């Protein structure tokens, strides 16, 4: 549905995006991950046709964004980083205007606007002027605006920024609902969000694509590298944990009464969590907690976006999946 080929974007001498290629299939949710200034927004702006690429090409449903911009834009909905609202319009007026310029036929406009407002939980503010909306509402009106014309492709630049936890969950659900019928690209720097919502992840750093894969596959590559926290009750389990094959180091992390917390490190590439649990239970001790110390995706993210001089190169991934 979305085809990005050797996309390069330069601002003067600065290269914001450097030779990035990836594809997104119909109905898929692609997570766009990267530190601030990595080129996420620039890539999204090129995909949506806001700016042309310096080199390379982008196709939306087969339409080149440079050669057939109108056709490509008709099929794209875009929520920019800051929602593009007109302060002097009410929410409903604003959405009707957007429906008009997005090419929604005049008969269908009112019902489409109504539906989008219900879907994004903003029907209660439809007669409020955009300038008076809170950040959470602004974000959701922006989302409604992107959905209005029922585009094939949805590009969402940090859709959950500024929302409260309940709204974040609701927005995630909405994104899930939309996924089957729409192809979605969303950027975020909240890592759990990617693990929960996206089927595939693109990690971009300093304008370069460093990894493309499913969140599971990305984390699987690194299993074992992440220290694991184990909390045990009823006795010292250090020796038992140390005895598990693959474990390289066990250290006491904390003590709360009779519970002892251990930090367990293991060799890279091995998932020792099952064996650790078994070892503790076999001793007859109480296993209170067992979890990776860092979100595994966070670990991936740090690994691929941090330069390690002399270290192992970042996994390049399948640039064109």
């Amino acid at each position, binding site marked *: 549905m979305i085809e990005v080929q050797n996309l390069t974007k330069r601002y003067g001498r600065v290269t914001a995006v450097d030779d990035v290629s990836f594809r997104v299939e119909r109905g898929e949710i692609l997570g766009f991950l990267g530190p601030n200034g990595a080129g996420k927004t620039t890539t999204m702006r090129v995909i949506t046709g806001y700016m042309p690429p310096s080199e390379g090409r982008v196709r939306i449903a087969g339409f080149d964004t440079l050669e057939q911009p109108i056709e490509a834009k008709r099929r794209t909905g875009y929520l920019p980083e800051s929602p593009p609202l007109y302060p002097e319009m009410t929410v409903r007026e604003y959405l009707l205007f957007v429906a*008009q310029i997005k090419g929604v036929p005049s008969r269908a406009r009112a019902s489409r606007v109504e539906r989008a407002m219900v879907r994004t939980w903003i029907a209660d503010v439809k007669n409020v002027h955009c300038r008076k909306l809170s950040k959470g509402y602004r974000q959701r009106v922006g989302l409604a605006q992107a959905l209005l014309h029922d585009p094939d492709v949805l590009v969402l630049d940090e859709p959950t920024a500024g929302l409260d936890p309940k709204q974040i969950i609701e927005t995630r659900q909405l994104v899930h609902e939309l996924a089957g019928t729409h192809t979605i690209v969303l950027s975020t720097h909240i890592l759990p969000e990617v693990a929960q919502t996206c089927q595939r992840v693109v990690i971009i750093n300093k304008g370069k694509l460093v990894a493309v894969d499913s969140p599971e596959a990305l984390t699987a590559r690194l299993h074992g590298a992440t220290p694991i926290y184990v909390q045990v009750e009823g006795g010292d389990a250090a020796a038992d944990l140390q005895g598990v094959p693959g474990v390289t180091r066990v250290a006491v992390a904390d003590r709360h009464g009779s519970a002892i917390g251990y930090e367990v490190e293991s060799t890279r590439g091995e998932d020792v969590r099952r064996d650790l649990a078994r070892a503790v239970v076999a001793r007859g001790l109480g296993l209170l907690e067992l979890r990776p110390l860092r979100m595994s995706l966070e670990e991936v993210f740090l690994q691929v976006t941090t330069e390690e001089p002399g270290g192992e190169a970042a996994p390049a991934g399948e640039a064109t999946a």
Partner: protein
Amino acid sequence: MSNVIAIARKELRAYFSSPIAYVVIGFFTLLFGYFYVAILDWFVRQGMLGGMGMTASALNVNQHFVRPLLLNLTVVLLFVLPMITMRTYAEEKRAGTMELLLTSPITDLQIILGKFFGALLLYAAMLAVTLVYIGVLFAVGTPEWKPIAAGYLGLLLLGASFIAVGLLISSFTRNQIVAGMLTFGVFLLLWVIDWIGTFLGPAGEKIVNYLSVVRHFDDFAKGVIDTTHLVYYLSFITFGLFLTAKSVDSERWRG
């Protein structure tokens, strides 16, 4: 076409839901009234002198009242029109709504024309309000309507040319004040450009005279519609809108 109308309506809504439209129309009408009274006073005194046989030519309402009135009015446009055009692009860029417009399935030209006609309609509304004063003229005297209509056509064209320049300048910046100030400066320059005519020599004089926006207006104020001037204003507007399109496009490439 429907996209142009959509943008134009959006522009008008923005003017009328902010103080801009009211301030501009109020200010313009007030100054129009002031000039009206001042020139009327002069006209009446001239008439009295004429009655005493002290002036050579007979006074004519069209030539000696409406014409100076409209010529004076053009000065007011210098101040008022930048206030209308300064926000057109600058505000869209500042608020980030440019991203919405440029990622919608509409062309740059449709956006430009929409903004142009939005501003032009507000300006036309300003002129329409002043017709009340002209109506008074018809109630108490017998002016000819055709020269007045020509004069208003001239005002509309002159204003449209300024609006085209104003749009162009607004597309350069995201700061309304900068856009407004620059626009005013450029208008003023276009206004006085023929003052240095004699200094530039015969060829230069011809060029600056041609470029001067007001010089082309005088015939309209007299009540004459000359195709030279029509062509001048229409090409001025087209050129201004064309440059605006280029400016928006180049901004796209630069990012």
